[in-house]
């Protein structure tokens, strides 16, 4: 590839040792040996272990195996499963494969099955493909006789079928494919020789439903290949023990947690992170960082290749537009996010890998693994929301261990200045966000149980033991397991009316088998735990405002969530795929758009990938806020803003929550500052609104951001408190998580969305397959209807339990809200004010920008009905 990798800005010092013509990924796999710096002494046995071909390969490049690579070889020789924690650029991937390469090459193993020796599992199919490409180079150069292949959803059917009979030595694949392979009756033959399983980016996989499924599959693989060894590759995490436990069998789930070995590579150079200070004043609200675009552009110009990370697709679109608006030098700047058409994304990726781009605006789609090019700067627009995410993203810059990565944080508003500062401190301290430990999801278990039945009849007691050997399910009770099996078979309803339709039937020897082969087929179509929100294709058509839409449209630009498209009215303009588009209409599964004449779209947001502020960063922000001595280190507008707050209201102490009440316009406001993230605040807002309504405060609506929430209404909230009619302690009492929550959940659209996901994963509802979709609304049964019926008639049903568990940590963040309410008991600092406080300004400004809650759905209908009445009586608004 013609890359000018040697042309570096003069101020950057790079070690000269790096061979200029090395393949890019090889550089990531094995870093060059540092001749200048002293290295830890090699273990003497190390070179002995390497077969001559491999030792010669290292020698030819002037490299030596790194200590952790040798440590993994050592562990493999003793058949010890190991977790390798290493920062990007440490040669992690090669470390994972070396033991297999050597072992396969030595060839001293007996073949009893299909001959599949090593299974590599990655969260991204693109990563699997990338690793395969970059693994074949060393294999060829070393002259090893090792066959590698990938298997993903993109692999051809013929090839996938062949792989089941005649697999390669090393198969690189995804969790879904592993589940699929295990559901075939030939799985015992296929995996009989399995020696090693490598999990890449384990930190990104483990604590999720995909991780649950993979853990169950691992338990099964251990059954099929009892001597199998696992190697986990992970970035630095706060609690490695959970990943270590994930890698090995939990043979005594009640009493003891077994852990894998661990090898840790300490991070090389600390990243250099600075917070951008722009010439323009930082705004009160918003996340777009528009005010700082000029400086962002200058930073791009001063670097070779910049990755510009944002948190949502909407922000990506927006930043892309803004950068091109001021792109006087016509720098090649690209755009990359999950909604773009796959072909378009591939084009951008290729351009990036070939060094044809100077900057790329991206969402979390570029967070993981793949090494697309020589990134030398990461810019983060808006706050990163979590310390781990920031470190992960910064790691995308500069895939060489011993050079510091360079990053610039660009806060979108004043609160985000505090948040960026907190993230910066956390990153410099190397602190990670602790992920909540999770217990395995029951909907995933249901899917797995059916998969196991598709492979062969199973003995429930044996499968229960097997399942519990997977760490996420170590705490599973027999009754939960039996209910799950029951669910798989007949739906598990209290009303036992489906026995005769049971999917699982007993065999003569007490096992359970699938009732008919069609069930297995059905299962294989619906495998996996990733359930996309229904998406519609966006198609660019030529003419505008045509009454009848053309039957054949133009180019497909990508996809948007169905619910986003549904709230558009023909004529609305929005930014997508880097251009301003005019919405023309929806037909079947496509959104028709034309190019809009305007440069200023209405930019309605569609919130792909909005993360709430992490608990860890929230605590740091609260600390910073409550300590005026650190304010002087903040940019002037922010420090002044906080000073003003102490003048007009108060700054809450570290362990307090501030609640302000004040009138504004003809409304009364209550603003609270929990700093618990947007999701928990939304839930809190819903519940507060219900309670205020009951007390007679006549709430009208509320708005929430990551730091605060504001509720407003007609009732004088300050007055109600003064008169003793409203007690804040009671208003914020933990008991709101009882009946109020329950009543709200009956109606909550978020809860229904959560239920739908669980229903699809558990196999109650079939996936919508592309092409099969058509506008089948009147044919398919909406999960909302099922949710309503189930809640009323079978409230203890397994699926409701599964959905509730998800909601508690997911979209509703109830667990976090519960912790907050417990924390602030007797610690509410109430300020009665005459007018809005400086701290309240940002959240109030979001009214009208962010979605306003508290308007129940009937209220919309009622308002529409009123509109009709006004129309009929001749005083319509317009």
């Amino acid at each position, binding site marked *: 590839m013609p890359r000018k990798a040697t042309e570096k800005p003069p101020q950057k010092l790079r070690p000269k040792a790096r061979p200029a013509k090395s393949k890019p990924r090889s550089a990531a796999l094995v870093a060059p040996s540092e001749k200048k710096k002293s290295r830890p002494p090699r273990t003497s046995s190390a070179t002995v272990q390497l077969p001559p071909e491999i030792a010669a390969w290292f020698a030819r490049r002037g490299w030596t195996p790194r200590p952790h690579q040798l440590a993994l070889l050592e562990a493999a020789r003793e058949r010890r499963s190991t977790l390798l924690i290493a920062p990007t650029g440490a040669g992690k991937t090669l470390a994972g494969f070396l033991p297999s390469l050597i072992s396969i090459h030595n060839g001293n193993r007996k073949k009893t099955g299909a001959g599949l020796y090593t299974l590599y599992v990655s969260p991204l199919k693109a990563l699997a493909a990338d690793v395969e490409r970059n693994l074949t180079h060393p294999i060829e150069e070393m002259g090893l006789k090792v066959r590698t292949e990938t298997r993903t959803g993109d692999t051809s059917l013929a090839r996938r079928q062949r792989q089941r009979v005649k697999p390669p030595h090393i198969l690189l694949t995804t969790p879904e494919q592993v589940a699929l392979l295990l559901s075939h009756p030939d799985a015992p033959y296929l995996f009989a020789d399995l020696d090693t399983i490598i999990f890449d980016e384990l930190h990104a996989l483990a604590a999720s439903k995909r991780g649950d499924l993979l853990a169950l599959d691992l338990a099964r693989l251990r059954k099929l290949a009892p001597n199998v060894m696992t190697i986990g590759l992970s970035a630095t995490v706060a609690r490695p023990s959970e990943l270590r436990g994930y890698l090995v069998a939990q043979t005594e789930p009640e009493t003891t947690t077994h852990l894998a070995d661990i090898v840790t590579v300490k991070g090389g150079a600390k990243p250099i992170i600075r917070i951008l200070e722009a010439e323009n004043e930082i705004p009160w609200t918003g996340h777009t960082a528009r005010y700082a675009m000029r400086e962002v552009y200058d930073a791009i110009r001063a670097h070779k290749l910049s990755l510009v990370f944002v948190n949502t697709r909407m922000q990506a679109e927006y930043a892309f537009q803004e950068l091109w608006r001021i792109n006087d030098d016509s720098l090649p700047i690209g755009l990359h996010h999950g909604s773009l058409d796959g072909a378009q994304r591939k084009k951008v990726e290729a351009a990036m890998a070939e060094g044809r781009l100077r900057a790329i605006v991206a969402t979390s789609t570029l967070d993981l693994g793949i090494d697309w090019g020589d990134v030398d700067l990461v810019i983060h627009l808006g706050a990163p929301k979590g310390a781990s995410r920031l470190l992960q993203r910064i790691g995308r810059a500069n895939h060489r261990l011993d050079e510091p990565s360079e990053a610039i944080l660009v806060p979108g508003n004043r609160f985000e200045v505090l948040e960026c500062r907190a993230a910066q401190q956390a990153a410099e301290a190397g602190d990670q966000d602790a992920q909540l430990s999770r217990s395995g999801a029951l909907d995933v278990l249901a899917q797995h149980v059916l998969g196991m039945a598709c492979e062969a009849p199973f003995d429930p007691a044996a499968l229960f033991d097997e399942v519990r050997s997977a760490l996420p399910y170590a705490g599973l009770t027999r009754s939960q397991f039996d209910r799950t099996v029951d669910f798989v078979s007949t739906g598990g309803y209290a*009303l036992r009316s489906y026995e005769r339709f049971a999917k699982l039937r007993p065999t003569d020897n007490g096992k359970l088998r699938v009732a008919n082969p069609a*069930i297995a087929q059905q299962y294989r179509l619906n495998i996996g735990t990733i359930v996309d929100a229904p998406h519609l294709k966006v198609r660019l058509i030529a003419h505008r405002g045509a009454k009848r839409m053309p039957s054949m449209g133009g180019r497909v630009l990508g996809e948007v969530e169905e619910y986003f498209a*549904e709230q558009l009215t023909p004529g609305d303009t929005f930014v997508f795929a880097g251009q301003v588009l005019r919405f023309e209409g929806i037909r079947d599964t496509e959104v028709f758009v034309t190019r809009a004449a305007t440069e200023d779209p209405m930019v309605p947001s569609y919130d792909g990938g909005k993360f709430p502020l992490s608990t860890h960063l929230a605590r740091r922000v609260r600390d910073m806020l409550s300590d005026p001595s650190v304010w002087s280190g903040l940019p002037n507008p922010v420090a002044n803003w906080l000073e003003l707050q102490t003048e007009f209201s108060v700054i809450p102490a570290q362990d307090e929550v501030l609640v302000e009440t004040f009138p504004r316009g003809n409304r009364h406001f209550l603003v609270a500052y929990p700093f618990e993230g947007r999701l928990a605040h939304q839930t809190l807002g819903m519940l507060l609104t219900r309670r205020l309504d009951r007390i007679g405060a006549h709430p*009208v609506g509320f708005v929430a951001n990551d730091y605060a929430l504001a509720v407003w209404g007609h009732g004088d909230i300050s007055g109600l408190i003064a008169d003793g009619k409203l007690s804040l302690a009671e208003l914020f009492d933990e008991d709101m998580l009882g009946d109020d929550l329950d009543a709200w959940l009956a109606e909550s659209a978020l809860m229904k969305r959560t239920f739908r996901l669980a229903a699809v994963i558990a196999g109650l509802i079939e996936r919508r397959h592309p092409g099969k979709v058509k506008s089948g609304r009147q044919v398919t*049964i909406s999960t909302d209807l099922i949710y*309503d*019926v*189930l809640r009323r008639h079978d409230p203890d049903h397994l699926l409701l339990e599964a959905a509730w568990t998800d909601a508690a940590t997911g979209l509703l963040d109830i667990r976090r809200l519960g912790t907050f309410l417990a924390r602030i008991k007797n610690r509410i600092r109430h300020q009665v004010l005459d007018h809005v406080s400086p701290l309240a300004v940002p959240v109030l400004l979001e009214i009208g920008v962010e979605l306003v809650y508290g308007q129940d759905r009937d209220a919309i209908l009622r*308002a529409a*009905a009123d509109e009709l009445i006004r129309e009929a009586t001749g005083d319509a608004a317009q």
Partner: protein
Amino acid sequence: MNMLKPERIGLDDFADQPVNICGKAFVAHKFGALYWPAERALIVSDLHLEKGSAFAARGQMLPPYDTRETLRKLATLIDRYQPETVISLGDSLHDSDGAARMDAADIESLHILQEDRDWIWITGNHDPKIDRTLAGYVVQEIIVGGLAFRHEPLPGAATHEIAGHFHPAARLVFHGTSLRRPCFVGNRLRLVMPAFGAYTGGLNILDGVFEPLFGMDGLDVWMLGHEGLYPVAPRLLRDD
């Protein structure tokens, strides 16, 4: 911000709405049923009883409570209006085996609802035959007081008809929110009722099949809410 709760409206004011068809006064209820005070008749359509078990028989174990839920709603309405006649406008069962799959307790509930009143099953495409265990009179269509009650609307601009079959639904886009709900749709000369069954979906009334029935002018639409039934101006409605 828009204030969305007009204070003059009490919660129950919208539970049912007067509807006029060919000069006859009806009351449409938020559950999707129609009451005819002059005849003391309650009319429902497309119950699709045992839809859940029909899916279960094909391997998709939907909750089996849809029949129970549909009958519960029906019982609430019978309590409220105390009708002398109940007319079910076809597709009362999801398929012809539906009655055989019905739980004994549900059949019992149905029989209790049928006590002391006329019960008329009009047949539909899903239930050309109604099993005798479900009692009631089974007819293809009936004409009462000059109005025809049938399952599928006659094609073209017919009048004097109350029918079901199409499961009409409307999508409202208002105040930046999109809301899709089953609805009554009519033009004062004929009416198509929403599906009453717990698992029934809906077909957007802007779909091509409705236009020939009503033309596009003078359409009346009532959308079903949780607290009420709401008349909505067609200009606020959108395609799917």
